[in-house]
């Protein structure tokens, strides 16, 4: 039986090893015990969201259930071997390493994962330190207050004859400034404090980020809206989106668009259409008679629903990212500008022209992605008034779209500040990786 067909058996083995009853797992995964029994006896295929859910309950990676622990470990070891630039490692001997020294193999794989997580954290923090407007304002506040304290205290200490009234005034200023400094410092620490575990981004604060975090939590699929529910009901059940007016406003706009898109392209129909036509945005646009940006968004939702890796990003006419769903190997900056070579920005220079491009990300492992991008107007046409455009880019890893080896890919990066590519004509600023801080 093919390895994939043994997924049910692996689920059963894992469940039993954890001392969990079939009824309990079924309940946690949201399915009937009878259906789970069929799955465990390999009489029903399982994939997508249900596999993710069962993996979550069993606290195991999905690939360990679908492909077996050995395959997942070998993949991680090969990845670790390729990630080390300047060191020649025979990735083909990963199986031998795993077979002869399984504990060391697991240790190596886990450390590589941790290393990549830390690298992502460094990228996120660097991006934030350089471009975060709130952080810049906080730092300016702290330095201004410190300056006032330094000058005032120097006057009192150095001072010669100081009028009693001036002394009192300066003492009061010192007291007020020290209080402000305490508050500013606490706010700065709180702002920078985040999970920082390399798996999630650090210190989320902006409305866009709050919404993206919530979407991440629900797998980017809003079931209630797929079923035709109301945006108000979704917001009512998502307290983290209604704490601040700006967050709620951002969330409402996003969800209303989501609902509109779902009405035009129902999820089940999209999944079926992808099965028939493949991931072909222009064909799907004809099938559903929808605008390409809607199609790109719905493809992303459909693939996410099936547990497949997919990324999508949108930007306004200024190039500022307005929505981000990153994927492994294609990080999306939170602050500052992204790589100008992204097809997303090329689309802005050619409004209404769909762009299909294979890109290759910089980094230890040069991963390739298929992208589809388009810039479309978001305002109603008015004579003699230039429309406002929004660009959208769908990002698909090479294992989802099966890119041929000989396809020429456009080299791109994350953002100039931390991109190692030398001689890039689009470079906007020096890279800290090559030029230092």
């Amino acid at each position, binding site marked *: 039986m093919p390895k994939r067909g043994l997924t049910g058996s692996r689920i059963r083995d894992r469940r039993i090893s954890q001392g969990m009853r079939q009824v309990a797992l079924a309940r946690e995964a949201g399915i009937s015990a009878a259906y789970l029994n069929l799955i465990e006896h390999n009489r029903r295929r399982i994939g997508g969201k249900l596999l993710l859910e069962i993996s979550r309950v069993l606290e195991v990676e999905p690939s360990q259930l679908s492909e077996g622990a050995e395959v997942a470990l070998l993949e991680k070891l090969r990845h670790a071997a390729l990630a080390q630039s300047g060191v020649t490692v025979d990735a083909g001997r990963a199986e031998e390493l795993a077979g002869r020294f399984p504990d060391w193999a697991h240790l190596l794989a886990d450390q590589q994962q941790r290393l990549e997580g830390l690298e992502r954290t460094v990228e996120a923090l660097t991006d934030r330190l350089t471009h975060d407007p709130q952080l810049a304002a906080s*730092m*300016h506040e702290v*330095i*201004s*207050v*410190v*300056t*006032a*304290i*330094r*000058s*005032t205290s*120097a*006057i009192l200490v*150095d001072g010669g004859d100081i009028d009693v009234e*001036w002394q009192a*005034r*300066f003492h009061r*200023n010192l007291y*007020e*400034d020290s209080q402000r400094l305490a508050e500013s410092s606490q706010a700065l620490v709180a702002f920078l404090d985040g999970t920082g575990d390399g798996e999630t981004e650090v210190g989320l604060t902006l409305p866009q980020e709050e919404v993206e975090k919530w979407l991440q939590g629900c797998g980017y699929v809003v079931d209630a809206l797929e079923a035709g529910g109301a945006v108000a009901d979704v917001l009512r059940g998502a307290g983290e989106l209604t704490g601040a007016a700006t967050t709620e406003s951002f969330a409402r706009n996003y969800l209303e668009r989501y609902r509109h898109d779902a009405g035009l392209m129902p999820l089940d129909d999209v999944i079926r259409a992808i099965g028939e036509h493949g991931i072909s945005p222009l064909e799907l646009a004809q099938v559903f008679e929808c605008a390409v940006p809607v199609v790109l968004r719905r493809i992303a939702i459909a693939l996410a629903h099936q547990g497949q890796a997919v990324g999508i990003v949108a930007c306004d006419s200024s190039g500022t990212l307005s929505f981000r769903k990153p994927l492994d190997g294609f990080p999306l900056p939170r602050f500052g500008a992204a790589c100008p070579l992204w097809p997303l920005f090329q689309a802005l220079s050619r409004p209404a022209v769909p762009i299909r491009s294979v890109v290759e990300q910089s980094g230890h492992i040069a991963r390739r992605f298929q992208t589809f991008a388009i810039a479309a107007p978001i305002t109603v046409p008015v004579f003699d008034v230039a429309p406002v455009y929004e660009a959208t880019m769908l990002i698909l890893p090479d294992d989802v779209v099966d890119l041929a080896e000989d396809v020429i890919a456009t080299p791109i990066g994350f953002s100039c500040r931390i991109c190692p590519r030398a001689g890039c004509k689009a470079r906007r600023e020096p890279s800290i990786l090559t030029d230092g801080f």
Partner: protein
Amino acid sequence: MGKRVLLIEDEPNIIEAIRYILSRDGFAVDTHSDGSTALQAIAAKAPDMVILDVMLPNKSGFEILRELRSDAATEGLPVLMLTARGQKKDREMAERFGASQFMTKPFSNSEMLESVRTLLGS
């Protein structure tokens, strides 16, 4: 009467400290806090020099400096730029826009006093 200094800065306690140390040294000190009306204040007060903070509300100190240098009446006016960022590129930007001198916060009072005396030839 002492030379006149116009301090363009929005942090009240920094204003008070600088005003105290300069006036104690014999300088007449005027102050202004809003970047958007700084040029009008300079025209109205006609100072002998300007101490100009970079981060001002409504208009940056660099923009103000650029406009001062493009006006024949103020192109030679001594300007001491104050900034919280002491990186080389900020210093270079201040020079490019025509700052007479560049000082990072926090500064020492003696350093401030020395700069003002130097720029005013006192």
